[in-house]
Protein backbone atom coordinates (compact mmCIF):
# COMPACT_ATOMS: atom_id res chain seq x y z
CA UNK A 1 0.00 0.00 0.00
CA UNK A 2 1.19 3.47 -0.87
CA UNK A 3 1.87 5.73 2.11
CA UNK A 4 -0.27 8.80 2.09
CA UNK A 5 1.39 12.18 2.72
CA UNK A 6 0.72 13.75 6.12
CA UNK A 7 -2.19 16.16 5.98
CA UNK A 8 -2.97 19.20 8.12
CA UNK A 9 -6.55 17.92 8.23
CA UNK A 10 -5.49 15.54 11.01
CA UNK A 11 -5.40 18.53 13.38
CA UNK A 12 -9.11 19.06 12.72
CA UNK A 13 -10.30 15.51 12.27
CA UNK A 14 -8.51 13.77 15.15
CA UNK A 15 -9.95 16.02 17.91
CA UNK A 16 -13.35 15.89 16.22
CA UNK A 17 -13.38 12.09 16.08
CA UNK A 18 -12.22 12.02 19.70
CA UNK A 19 -15.11 14.27 20.71
CA UNK A 20 -17.62 11.81 19.24
CA UNK A 21 -15.83 8.80 20.76
CA UNK A 22 -15.24 10.23 24.24
CA UNK A 23 -18.67 9.54 25.80
CA UNK A 24 -18.47 5.90 24.70
CA UNK A 25 -14.92 5.59 26.04
CA UNK A 26 -16.18 7.00 29.32
CA UNK A 27 -19.04 4.48 29.31
CA UNK A 28 -16.55 1.62 29.08
CA UNK A 29 -14.13 3.12 31.59
CA UNK A 30 -16.74 3.90 34.24
CA UNK A 31 -18.23 0.41 33.95
CA UNK A 32 -15.01 -1.00 35.43
CA UNK A 33 -14.64 1.58 38.20
CA UNK A 34 -15.39 0.86 41.83
CA UNK A 35 -18.26 2.64 43.55
CA UNK A 36 -15.74 4.22 45.93
CA UNK A 37 -13.97 5.90 42.99
CA UNK A 38 -17.23 7.17 41.55
CA UNK A 39 -18.75 8.36 44.82
CA UNK A 40 -15.70 10.39 45.82
CA UNK A 41 -15.84 14.15 45.32
CA UNK A 42 -14.69 15.15 42.83
CA UNK A 43 -15.14 11.74 41.18
CA UNK A 44 -12.07 10.03 39.72
CA UNK A 45 -11.34 10.66 36.05
CA UNK A 46 -9.59 7.33 35.55
CA UNK A 47 -9.88 4.00 37.37
CA UNK A 48 -6.96 2.64 39.41
CA UNK A 49 -7.61 -0.88 38.22
CA UNK A 50 -10.23 -2.96 36.54
CA UNK A 51 -13.10 -3.62 38.92
CA UNK A 52 -15.69 -6.06 37.62
CA UNK A 53 -18.07 -5.54 40.56
CA UNK A 54 -20.58 -3.73 38.35
CA UNK A 55 -20.72 -6.58 35.85
CA UNK A 56 -20.94 -9.17 38.61
CA UNK A 57 -23.88 -7.26 40.09
CA UNK A 58 -25.89 -6.85 36.88
CA UNK A 59 -25.29 -10.43 35.74
CA UNK A 60 -25.90 -11.97 39.16
CA UNK A 61 -28.35 -9.81 41.09
CA UNK A 62 -30.32 -8.23 38.30
CA UNK A 63 -32.42 -9.57 35.47
CA UNK A 64 -30.00 -8.40 32.74
CA UNK A 65 -29.38 -11.92 31.35
CA UNK A 66 -33.15 -12.40 31.07
CA UNK A 67 -33.62 -8.99 29.40
CA UNK A 68 -30.80 -9.77 27.00
CA UNK A 69 -32.55 -13.01 26.02
CA UNK A 70 -35.89 -11.19 25.59
CA UNK A 71 -34.31 -8.53 23.34
CA UNK A 72 -32.51 -11.22 21.40
CA UNK A 73 -35.70 -13.23 20.82
CA UNK A 74 -37.68 -10.17 19.69
CA UNK A 75 -34.92 -8.95 17.34
CA UNK A 76 -34.16 -12.40 15.92
CA UNK A 77 -37.82 -13.14 15.16
CA UNK A 78 -38.36 -9.66 13.72
CA UNK A 79 -35.30 -9.87 11.44
CA UNK A 80 -36.20 -13.36 10.19
CA UNK A 81 -39.83 -12.44 9.61
CA UNK A 82 -38.93 -9.22 7.78
CA UNK A 83 -36.55 -11.13 5.50
CA UNK A 84 -39.14 -13.81 4.71
CA UNK A 85 -42.31 -11.71 4.46
CA UNK A 86 -40.53 -8.67 3.00
CA UNK A 87 -38.89 -10.66 0.20
CA UNK A 88 -42.11 -12.55 -0.60
CA UNK A 89 -44.12 -9.34 -0.77
CA UNK A 90 -41.39 -7.39 -2.51
CA UNK A 91 -40.99 -10.10 -5.15
CA UNK A 92 -44.73 -10.25 -5.85
CA UNK A 93 -44.94 -6.47 -6.21
CA UNK A 94 -41.90 -6.41 -8.50
CA UNK A 95 -42.63 -9.37 -10.78
CA UNK A 96 -46.11 -10.83 -10.52
CA UNK A 97 -49.04 -9.13 -12.22
CA UNK A 98 -52.13 -9.50 -10.10
CA UNK A 99 -55.33 -7.52 -9.67
CA UNK A 100 -55.04 -4.72 -7.15
CA UNK A 101 -51.26 -4.89 -6.75
CA UNK A 102 -50.66 -1.22 -7.57
CA UNK A 103 -53.37 0.00 -5.19
CA UNK A 104 -52.19 -2.22 -2.34
CA UNK A 105 -48.55 -1.23 -2.83
CA UNK A 106 -49.47 2.45 -2.89
CA UNK A 107 -51.53 2.06 0.26
CA UNK A 108 -48.70 0.24 2.03
CA UNK A 109 -46.16 2.89 1.09
CA UNK A 110 -48.56 5.59 2.24
CA UNK A 111 -48.64 4.04 5.72
CA UNK A 112 -44.93 4.86 6.09
CA UNK A 113 -45.82 8.49 6.80
CA UNK A 114 -48.12 7.59 9.71
CA UNK A 115 -46.39 8.61 12.94
CA UNK A 116 -46.24 5.99 15.67
CA UNK A 117 -48.10 8.18 18.18
CA UNK A 118 -51.20 7.95 16.01
CA UNK A 119 -51.32 4.17 16.11
CA UNK A 120 -49.97 3.41 19.57
CA UNK A 121 -53.19 3.57 21.61
CA UNK A 122 -55.28 1.43 19.21
CA UNK A 123 -52.34 -0.97 18.75
CA UNK A 124 -52.23 -1.29 22.54
CA UNK A 125 -55.97 -2.04 22.58
CA UNK A 126 -55.63 -4.59 19.75
CA UNK A 127 -52.79 -6.34 21.57
CA UNK A 128 -54.89 -6.34 24.74
CA UNK A 129 -57.77 -7.99 22.85
CA UNK A 130 -55.35 -10.61 21.53
CA UNK A 131 -54.14 -11.25 25.09
CA UNK A 132 -50.58 -10.32 24.12
CA UNK A 133 -49.99 -7.35 26.45
CA UNK A 134 -47.11 -8.08 28.82
CA UNK A 135 -45.79 -10.86 26.58
CA UNK A 136 -43.01 -10.80 24.00
CA UNK A 137 -45.74 -11.43 21.43
CA UNK A 138 -46.90 -7.83 21.83
CA UNK A 139 -43.41 -6.70 20.79
CA UNK A 140 -43.04 -9.23 17.99
CA UNK A 141 -46.37 -8.99 16.13
CA UNK A 142 -46.18 -5.29 15.14
CA UNK A 143 -42.57 -5.69 13.96
CA UNK A 144 -43.04 -8.86 11.85
CA UNK A 145 -42.88 -6.86 8.62
CA UNK A 146 -42.56 -3.16 7.86
CA UNK A 147 -43.54 -1.35 4.66
CA UNK A 148 -39.88 -0.27 4.37
CA UNK A 149 -38.73 -3.92 4.19
CA UNK A 150 -41.25 -4.73 1.44
CA UNK A 151 -40.32 -1.56 -0.43
CA UNK A 152 -36.54 -2.14 -0.22
CA UNK A 153 -36.92 -5.69 -1.55
CA UNK A 154 -39.25 -4.53 -4.31
CA UNK A 155 -36.81 -1.83 -5.44
CA UNK A 156 -33.97 -4.33 -5.51
CA UNK A 157 -35.92 -6.98 -7.44
CA UNK A 158 -37.11 -4.43 -10.01
CA UNK A 159 -33.47 -3.61 -10.72
CA UNK A 160 -32.54 -7.26 -11.43
CA UNK A 161 -32.69 -8.30 -15.10
CA UNK A 162 -35.73 -10.50 -15.82
CA UNK A 163 -33.72 -12.79 -18.11
CA UNK A 164 -32.21 -14.50 -15.07
CA UNK A 165 -35.61 -15.89 -14.16
CA UNK A 166 -36.94 -16.59 -17.64
CA UNK A 167 -35.15 -19.89 -18.26
CA UNK A 168 -36.47 -21.30 -14.99
CA UNK A 169 -39.96 -19.95 -15.78
CA UNK A 170 -40.01 -21.66 -19.17
CA UNK A 171 -38.85 -24.90 -17.53
CA UNK A 172 -42.02 -24.69 -15.46
CA UNK A 173 -40.51 -23.60 -12.12
CA UNK A 174 -42.99 -22.06 -9.70
CA UNK A 175 -42.59 -18.52 -8.38
CA UNK A 176 -41.56 -19.63 -4.91
CA UNK A 177 -38.89 -21.90 -6.35
CA UNK A 178 -37.57 -19.09 -8.57
CA UNK A 179 -37.51 -16.67 -5.63
CA UNK A 180 -35.64 -19.04 -3.35
CA UNK A 181 -33.13 -20.60 -5.72
CA UNK A 182 -32.47 -17.83 -8.26
CA UNK A 183 -33.45 -14.40 -6.96
CA UNK A 184 -32.58 -14.50 -3.25
CA UNK A 185 -28.99 -15.72 -3.74
CA UNK A 186 -28.45 -12.54 -5.80
CA UNK A 187 -30.16 -10.32 -3.25
CA UNK A 188 -27.49 -10.14 -0.55
CA UNK A 189 -27.39 -6.31 -0.50
CA UNK A 190 -31.17 -6.12 0.00
CA UNK A 191 -31.13 -8.91 2.58
CA UNK A 192 -28.40 -7.25 4.62
CA UNK A 193 -30.02 -3.81 4.40
CA UNK A 194 -33.35 -5.12 5.68
CA UNK A 195 -31.63 -7.18 8.40
CA UNK A 196 -29.58 -4.19 9.61
CA UNK A 197 -32.48 -1.73 9.66
CA UNK A 198 -34.84 -4.19 11.37
CA UNK A 199 -32.25 -5.18 13.97
CA UNK A 200 -31.45 -1.54 14.82
CA UNK A 201 -35.13 -0.61 15.09
CA UNK A 202 -36.18 -3.54 17.27
CA UNK A 203 -33.10 -3.78 19.49
CA UNK A 204 -33.05 -0.05 20.24
CA UNK A 205 -36.79 0.53 20.68
CA UNK A 206 -37.95 1.87 24.02
CA UNK A 207 -41.38 3.48 23.45
CA UNK A 208 -43.37 0.41 22.48
CA UNK A 209 -41.92 -1.96 25.15
CA UNK A 210 -42.61 0.79 27.69
CA UNK A 211 -46.29 0.75 26.68
CA UNK A 212 -46.78 -2.97 26.07
CA UNK A 213 -44.78 -4.56 28.91
CA UNK A 214 -45.41 -4.36 32.67
CA UNK A 215 -43.58 -7.25 34.38
CA UNK A 216 -39.84 -6.93 34.83
CA UNK A 217 -39.22 -10.51 33.66
CA UNK A 218 -40.61 -9.55 30.22
CA UNK A 219 -38.61 -6.30 29.85
CA UNK A 220 -36.30 -5.83 26.92
CA UNK A 221 -32.76 -4.54 27.56
CA UNK A 222 -33.66 -0.91 26.77
CA UNK A 223 -36.62 -0.92 29.14
CA UNK A 224 -34.72 -2.91 31.78
CA UNK A 225 -31.73 -0.56 31.65
CA UNK A 226 -33.96 2.50 32.00
CA UNK A 227 -35.83 1.03 34.97
CA UNK A 228 -32.61 -0.28 36.55
CA UNK A 229 -31.10 3.20 36.42
CA UNK A 230 -34.14 4.65 38.16
CA UNK A 231 -33.81 2.14 40.99
CA UNK A 232 -30.01 2.13 41.38
CA UNK A 233 -28.95 5.70 40.78
CA UNK A 234 -26.21 5.51 43.37
CA UNK A 235 -24.62 2.38 41.88
CA UNK A 236 -23.34 4.02 38.73
CA UNK A 237 -20.69 1.36 38.00
CA UNK A 238 -23.42 -1.30 37.85
CA UNK A 239 -25.66 0.94 35.74
CA UNK A 240 -22.81 1.56 33.29
CA UNK A 241 -22.00 -2.17 33.16
CA UNK A 242 -25.63 -2.80 32.25
CA UNK A 243 -25.40 -0.03 29.68
CA UNK A 244 -22.33 -1.65 28.08
CA UNK A 245 -24.24 -4.94 27.84
CA UNK A 246 -27.15 -3.11 26.17
CA UNK A 247 -24.99 -1.28 23.63
CA UNK A 248 -22.43 -4.00 22.89
CA UNK A 249 -24.42 -6.15 20.41
CA UNK A 250 -25.19 -3.13 18.24
CA UNK A 251 -21.63 -1.81 18.45
CA UNK A 252 -20.12 -5.21 17.62
CA UNK A 253 -22.59 -5.69 14.78
CA UNK A 254 -21.71 -2.25 13.49
CA UNK A 255 -17.95 -2.78 13.67
CA UNK A 256 -18.16 -6.23 12.04
CA UNK A 257 -20.54 -5.20 9.26
CA UNK A 258 -19.74 -1.51 9.00
CA UNK A 259 -20.07 -1.37 5.23
CA UNK A 260 -23.52 -2.98 5.28
CA UNK A 261 -24.65 -0.63 8.08
CA UNK A 262 -23.45 2.51 6.35
CA UNK A 263 -24.71 1.50 2.93
CA UNK A 264 -28.11 0.59 4.41
CA UNK A 265 -28.52 3.84 6.29
CA UNK A 266 -27.14 6.02 3.51
CA UNK A 267 -29.42 4.33 0.99
CA UNK A 268 -32.53 5.20 3.02
CA UNK A 269 -31.36 8.78 2.61
CA UNK A 270 -30.48 8.85 -1.05
CA UNK A 271 -33.54 6.98 -2.27
CA UNK A 272 -35.95 8.46 0.27
Amino acid sequence: MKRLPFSAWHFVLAPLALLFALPLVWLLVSSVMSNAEINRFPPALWPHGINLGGYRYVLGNALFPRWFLNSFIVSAVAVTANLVLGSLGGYAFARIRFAGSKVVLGLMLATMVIPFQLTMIPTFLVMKELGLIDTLGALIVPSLVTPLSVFLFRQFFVSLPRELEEAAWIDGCGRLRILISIVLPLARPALSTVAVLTFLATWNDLTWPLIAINSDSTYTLQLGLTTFQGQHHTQWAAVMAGNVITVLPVLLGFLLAQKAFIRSLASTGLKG
Partner: protein
Amino acid sequence: MASVVGTFTVDPRSRAAAKRRARTEGATGWAFVSPSVVIILGLSVVPVLWSLLLSFQVNDLVSPSEWVGLANYKALLKDPTFGSAVSHTLIYTVLYVPLSVIAGLAIAIALDRKIAFIGLYRTLVFVPFVVSAAAQGVLFSFVLDPEFGVANSVLHKLGLPAQGFFSDPGQALYLLVAISLWSGTGFCVIVYLAGLQGVSSELVEAARIDGAGRWGVLRHVTLPALTPVTIFLVLFQTINALQVFDLVFVTTKGGPLGSTTVIVYFIWEKAFKTFTAGYSAAAAYTLAVALLVVGVVLQVYRRRVASR
Protein backbone atom coordinates in the same frame (compact mmCIF):
# COMPACT_ATOMS: atom_id res chain seq x y z
CA MET B 1 -58.17 -23.79 -35.30
CA ALA B 2 -54.82 -22.24 -34.78
CA SER B 3 -54.84 -18.47 -34.73
CA VAL B 4 -51.94 -16.39 -35.98
CA VAL B 5 -50.31 -13.77 -33.80
CA GLY B 6 -47.58 -11.90 -35.59
CA THR B 7 -45.44 -14.57 -37.22
CA PHE B 8 -46.01 -17.15 -34.50
CA THR B 9 -48.67 -19.77 -34.68
CA VAL B 10 -50.23 -20.08 -31.26
CA ASP B 11 -51.73 -23.40 -30.34
CA PRO B 12 -55.11 -22.80 -28.64
CA ARG B 13 -54.16 -25.37 -26.00
CA SER B 14 -51.10 -23.39 -24.96
CA ARG B 15 -53.21 -20.24 -24.96
CA ALA B 16 -55.52 -21.94 -22.46
CA ALA B 17 -52.46 -22.95 -20.46
CA ALA B 18 -51.25 -19.37 -20.47
CA LYS B 19 -54.65 -18.20 -19.26
CA ARG B 20 -54.60 -20.78 -16.51
CA ARG B 21 -51.12 -19.74 -15.55
CA ALA B 22 -52.19 -16.10 -15.45
CA ARG B 23 -55.02 -17.04 -13.10
CA THR B 24 -52.75 -18.95 -10.73
CA GLU B 25 -50.28 -16.06 -11.02
CA GLY B 26 -52.90 -13.80 -9.47
CA ALA B 27 -53.42 -16.27 -6.64
CA THR B 28 -49.65 -16.61 -6.13
CA GLY B 29 -49.26 -12.83 -6.04
CA TRP B 30 -51.91 -12.45 -3.38
CA ALA B 31 -50.52 -15.37 -1.40
CA PHE B 32 -47.08 -13.72 -1.39
CA VAL B 33 -48.26 -10.28 -0.32
CA SER B 34 -51.15 -11.16 2.00
CA PRO B 35 -49.14 -11.67 5.23
CA SER B 36 -47.52 -8.24 4.77
CA VAL B 37 -50.79 -6.61 3.73
CA VAL B 38 -52.70 -7.98 6.72
CA ILE B 39 -50.02 -6.99 9.25
CA ILE B 40 -49.11 -3.60 7.80
CA LEU B 41 -52.56 -2.36 6.86
CA GLY B 42 -54.18 -4.03 9.88
CA LEU B 43 -51.82 -2.26 12.25
CA SER B 44 -51.90 1.11 10.50
CA VAL B 45 -55.16 1.87 8.68
CA VAL B 46 -57.38 0.43 11.40
CA PRO B 47 -55.53 2.19 14.27
CA VAL B 48 -55.43 5.51 12.39
CA LEU B 49 -59.22 5.53 12.00
CA TRP B 50 -59.66 4.24 15.55
CA SER B 51 -57.45 7.08 16.86
CA LEU B 52 -59.60 9.57 15.00
CA LEU B 53 -62.72 8.19 16.70
CA LEU B 54 -60.93 8.18 20.06
CA SER B 55 -60.03 11.85 19.66
CA PHE B 56 -63.75 12.68 19.70
CA GLN B 57 -64.35 10.61 22.82
CA VAL B 58 -63.60 10.44 26.51
CA ASN B 59 -61.85 7.11 27.02
CA ASP B 60 -59.81 5.67 29.90
CA LEU B 61 -58.76 2.49 28.00
CA VAL B 62 -61.01 0.40 30.28
CA SER B 63 -64.63 1.53 30.59
CA PRO B 64 -66.95 2.29 27.62
CA SER B 65 -66.19 5.59 25.98
CA GLU B 66 -68.40 8.64 25.65
CA TRP B 67 -68.76 10.83 22.54
CA VAL B 68 -67.75 14.45 23.18
CA GLY B 69 -67.27 15.85 19.67
CA LEU B 70 -64.54 18.46 19.41
CA ALA B 71 -64.25 18.99 23.17
CA ASN B 72 -60.80 17.34 23.35
CA TYR B 73 -59.41 19.62 20.63
CA LYS B 74 -60.92 22.70 22.25
CA ALA B 75 -59.44 21.70 25.61
CA LEU B 76 -56.02 21.18 23.98
CA LEU B 77 -56.01 24.74 22.65
CA LYS B 78 -56.57 26.05 26.18
CA ASP B 79 -54.24 23.61 27.96
CA PRO B 80 -51.10 25.53 29.04
CA THR B 81 -49.17 22.23 29.43
CA PHE B 82 -49.83 21.39 25.78
CA GLY B 83 -48.86 24.92 24.79
CA SER B 84 -45.53 24.64 26.54
CA ALA B 85 -45.02 21.12 25.14
CA VAL B 86 -45.42 22.60 21.65
CA SER B 87 -42.99 25.41 22.36
CA HIS B 88 -40.38 23.05 23.92
CA THR B 89 -40.65 20.79 20.88
CA LEU B 90 -40.25 23.77 18.54
CA ILE B 91 -37.18 25.06 20.41
CA TYR B 92 -35.65 21.59 20.29
CA THR B 93 -36.43 21.22 16.56
CA VAL B 94 -35.30 24.70 15.54
CA LEU B 95 -31.94 24.11 17.22
CA TYR B 96 -31.39 20.45 16.39
CA VAL B 97 -32.31 20.36 12.69
CA PRO B 98 -30.15 23.18 11.27
CA LEU B 99 -27.23 22.43 13.59
CA SER B 100 -27.15 18.72 12.75
CA VAL B 101 -27.53 19.32 9.00
CA ILE B 102 -24.92 22.10 8.81
CA ALA B 103 -22.46 20.26 11.07
CA GLY B 104 -23.15 17.10 9.05
CA LEU B 105 -22.26 18.86 5.81
CA ALA B 106 -19.12 20.48 7.24
CA ILE B 107 -17.88 17.22 8.74
CA ALA B 108 -18.72 15.27 5.57
CA ILE B 109 -16.67 17.71 3.48
CA ALA B 110 -13.81 17.42 5.97
CA LEU B 111 -14.01 13.62 5.84
CA ASP B 112 -14.26 13.48 2.02
CA ARG B 113 -10.53 13.06 1.35
CA LYS B 114 -8.04 10.26 1.07
CA ILE B 115 -5.70 10.56 4.04
CA ALA B 116 -4.46 8.11 6.66
CA PHE B 117 -6.96 7.03 9.37
CA ILE B 118 -9.88 8.48 7.40
CA GLY B 119 -11.83 5.23 7.85
CA LEU B 120 -11.28 5.40 11.60
CA TYR B 121 -12.42 9.04 11.74
CA ARG B 122 -15.58 8.23 9.82
CA THR B 123 -16.34 5.26 12.07
CA LEU B 124 -15.94 7.29 15.25
CA VAL B 125 -18.11 10.18 14.03
CA PHE B 126 -20.86 7.78 13.01
CA VAL B 127 -20.79 5.24 15.82
CA PRO B 128 -22.96 7.18 18.34
CA PHE B 129 -25.83 6.97 15.82
CA VAL B 130 -26.31 3.24 16.43
CA VAL B 131 -26.44 3.70 20.22
CA SER B 132 -30.05 3.57 21.45
CA ALA B 133 -31.68 6.66 22.94
CA ALA B 134 -32.14 4.74 26.20
CA ALA B 135 -28.42 3.96 26.42
CA GLN B 136 -27.52 7.57 25.51
CA GLY B 137 -29.90 8.87 28.16
CA VAL B 138 -28.54 6.59 30.88
CA LEU B 139 -24.95 7.41 29.93
CA PHE B 140 -25.47 11.18 29.98
CA SER B 141 -27.53 11.03 33.16
CA PHE B 142 -24.34 9.70 34.72
CA VAL B 143 -21.89 12.04 32.95
CA LEU B 144 -24.07 15.04 33.89
CA ASP B 145 -24.98 13.86 37.40
CA PRO B 146 -24.45 16.99 39.53
CA GLU B 147 -22.77 15.00 42.34
CA PHE B 148 -21.09 11.97 40.82
CA GLY B 149 -20.78 13.00 37.17
CA VAL B 150 -17.53 13.51 35.32
CA ALA B 151 -18.76 16.80 33.81
CA ASN B 152 -18.79 18.64 37.14
CA SER B 153 -15.55 16.92 38.03
CA VAL B 154 -13.89 18.44 34.97
CA LEU B 155 -15.43 21.85 35.68
CA HIS B 156 -14.04 21.60 39.21
CA LYS B 157 -10.54 20.83 37.87
CA LEU B 158 -10.80 23.86 35.58
CA GLY B 159 -11.85 26.01 38.54
CA LEU B 160 -15.34 26.59 37.12
CA PRO B 161 -18.54 26.46 39.21
CA ALA B 162 -20.52 23.21 39.36
CA GLN B 163 -23.68 23.05 37.25
CA GLY B 164 -27.11 21.57 37.88
CA PHE B 165 -27.45 20.18 34.34
CA PHE B 166 -30.65 18.09 34.13
CA SER B 167 -31.82 19.45 37.49
CA ASP B 168 -31.63 23.01 36.14
CA PRO B 169 -34.81 24.04 34.24
CA GLY B 170 -32.76 26.58 32.29
CA GLN B 171 -30.32 23.97 30.95
CA ALA B 172 -32.14 20.66 30.56
CA LEU B 173 -33.72 21.23 27.13
CA TYR B 174 -30.46 22.53 25.64
CA LEU B 175 -28.58 19.54 27.02
CA LEU B 176 -31.08 17.27 25.23
CA VAL B 177 -30.32 19.12 21.99
CA ALA B 178 -26.58 18.66 22.59
CA ILE B 179 -26.92 14.92 23.25
CA SER B 180 -29.07 14.51 20.14
CA LEU B 181 -26.45 16.38 18.12
CA TRP B 182 -23.78 14.00 19.41
CA SER B 183 -25.71 10.97 18.24
CA GLY B 184 -27.67 12.36 15.28
CA THR B 185 -25.05 14.33 13.35
CA GLY B 186 -23.33 11.13 12.19
CA PHE B 187 -26.37 10.20 10.12
CA CYS B 188 -26.21 13.52 8.23
CA VAL B 189 -22.49 12.94 7.73
CA ILE B 190 -22.88 9.55 6.06
CA VAL B 191 -25.77 10.66 3.88
CA TYR B 192 -23.79 13.73 2.77
CA LEU B 193 -20.66 11.59 2.22
CA ALA B 194 -22.69 9.31 -0.05
CA GLY B 195 -24.13 12.40 -1.77
CA LEU B 196 -20.67 13.93 -2.28
CA GLN B 197 -19.62 10.85 -4.28
CA GLY B 198 -22.32 11.86 -6.77
CA VAL B 199 -21.05 15.41 -7.27
CA SER B 200 -19.49 15.48 -10.71
CA SER B 201 -15.74 15.91 -10.42
CA GLU B 202 -15.72 17.32 -13.97
CA LEU B 203 -17.95 20.20 -12.88
CA VAL B 204 -15.64 20.87 -9.92
CA GLU B 205 -12.62 20.81 -12.25
CA ALA B 206 -14.34 23.12 -14.72
CA ALA B 207 -15.18 25.60 -11.96
CA ARG B 208 -11.56 25.47 -10.73
CA ILE B 209 -10.27 26.16 -14.22
CA ASP B 210 -12.69 29.10 -14.47
CA GLY B 211 -10.93 30.51 -11.43
CA ALA B 212 -13.33 29.56 -8.64
CA GLY B 213 -11.76 29.25 -5.21
CA ARG B 214 -12.69 26.70 -2.59
CA TRP B 215 -15.71 28.74 -1.44
CA GLY B 216 -16.79 29.39 -5.00
CA VAL B 217 -16.78 25.67 -5.81
CA LEU B 218 -18.68 24.91 -2.61
CA ARG B 219 -21.29 27.61 -3.18
CA HIS B 220 -21.84 27.25 -6.90
CA VAL B 221 -21.14 23.56 -7.59
CA THR B 222 -21.18 21.33 -4.50
CA LEU B 223 -24.12 22.82 -2.59
CA PRO B 224 -26.52 23.02 -5.56
CA ALA B 225 -25.66 19.41 -6.46
CA LEU B 226 -26.43 18.36 -2.88
CA THR B 227 -29.77 20.18 -2.64
CA PRO B 228 -31.92 17.02 -2.89
CA VAL B 229 -29.84 15.41 -0.12
CA THR B 230 -30.20 18.52 2.02
CA ILE B 231 -33.97 18.61 1.59
CA PHE B 232 -34.20 14.93 2.49
CA LEU B 233 -32.09 15.45 5.63
CA VAL B 234 -34.08 18.50 6.74
CA LEU B 235 -37.28 16.49 6.32
CA PHE B 236 -35.92 13.41 8.06
CA GLN B 237 -34.38 15.31 10.97
CA THR B 238 -37.46 17.53 11.43
CA ILE B 239 -39.80 14.53 11.57
CA ASN B 240 -37.51 12.85 14.11
CA ALA B 241 -37.10 16.01 16.18
CA LEU B 242 -40.85 16.69 16.37
CA GLN B 243 -41.28 13.12 17.65
CA VAL B 244 -38.49 13.14 20.26
CA PHE B 245 -39.48 11.02 23.25
CA ASP B 246 -37.13 8.20 24.37
CA LEU B 247 -34.27 10.48 25.37
CA VAL B 248 -36.62 12.75 27.33
CA PHE B 249 -38.24 9.80 29.07
CA VAL B 250 -34.89 8.37 30.18
CA THR B 251 -33.20 11.59 31.29
CA THR B 252 -35.72 14.12 32.60
CA LYS B 253 -39.23 12.62 32.42
CA GLY B 254 -40.35 16.02 31.16
CA GLY B 255 -38.85 17.89 34.13
CA PRO B 256 -37.48 19.76 35.94
CA LEU B 257 -40.58 21.90 36.42
CA GLY B 258 -41.95 20.68 33.09
CA SER B 259 -39.12 22.38 31.20
CA THR B 260 -38.56 19.41 28.86
CA THR B 261 -42.14 18.21 28.37
CA VAL B 262 -42.26 17.72 24.60
CA ILE B 263 -45.35 16.86 22.53
CA VAL B 264 -44.85 13.10 22.40
CA TYR B 265 -44.11 13.00 26.12
CA PHE B 266 -47.41 14.84 26.64
CA ILE B 267 -49.20 12.31 24.38
CA TRP B 268 -47.67 9.35 26.21
CA GLU B 269 -48.45 10.79 29.64
CA LYS B 270 -52.08 11.50 28.78
CA ALA B 271 -52.60 8.02 27.33
CA PHE B 272 -50.71 5.72 29.65
CA LYS B 273 -50.22 7.64 32.91
CA THR B 274 -53.41 9.61 33.44
CA PHE B 275 -55.48 7.30 31.17
CA THR B 276 -57.15 10.06 29.19
CA ALA B 277 -56.78 8.26 25.87
CA GLY B 278 -59.24 10.45 23.93
CA TYR B 279 -57.38 13.60 24.93
CA SER B 280 -54.08 11.94 24.04
CA ALA B 281 -55.41 10.89 20.63
CA ALA B 282 -56.45 14.49 19.92
CA ALA B 283 -52.91 15.65 20.71
CA ALA B 284 -51.48 12.87 18.52
CA TYR B 285 -53.71 13.95 15.62
CA THR B 286 -52.60 17.54 16.04
CA LEU B 287 -48.97 16.42 15.84
CA ALA B 288 -49.67 14.14 12.86
CA VAL B 289 -51.24 16.98 10.91
CA ALA B 290 -48.21 19.17 11.65
CA LEU B 291 -45.88 16.38 10.45
CA LEU B 292 -47.94 15.94 7.31
CA VAL B 293 -47.75 19.66 6.53
CA VAL B 294 -43.95 19.66 6.98
CA GLY B 295 -43.69 16.58 4.77
CA VAL B 296 -45.89 17.92 1.99
CA VAL B 297 -44.21 21.35 1.95
CA LEU B 298 -40.74 19.83 1.68
CA GLN B 299 -41.84 17.31 -0.97
CA VAL B 300 -43.36 20.06 -3.10
CA TYR B 301 -40.17 22.08 -2.68
CA ARG B 302 -38.08 19.05 -3.67
CA ARG B 303 -40.18 18.47 -6.82
CA ARG B 304 -39.76 22.10 -7.77
CA VAL B 305 -35.98 21.95 -7.28
CA ALA B 306 -35.78 18.68 -9.22
CA SER B 307 -37.73 20.03 -12.19
CA ARG B 308 -35.56 23.10 -12.46
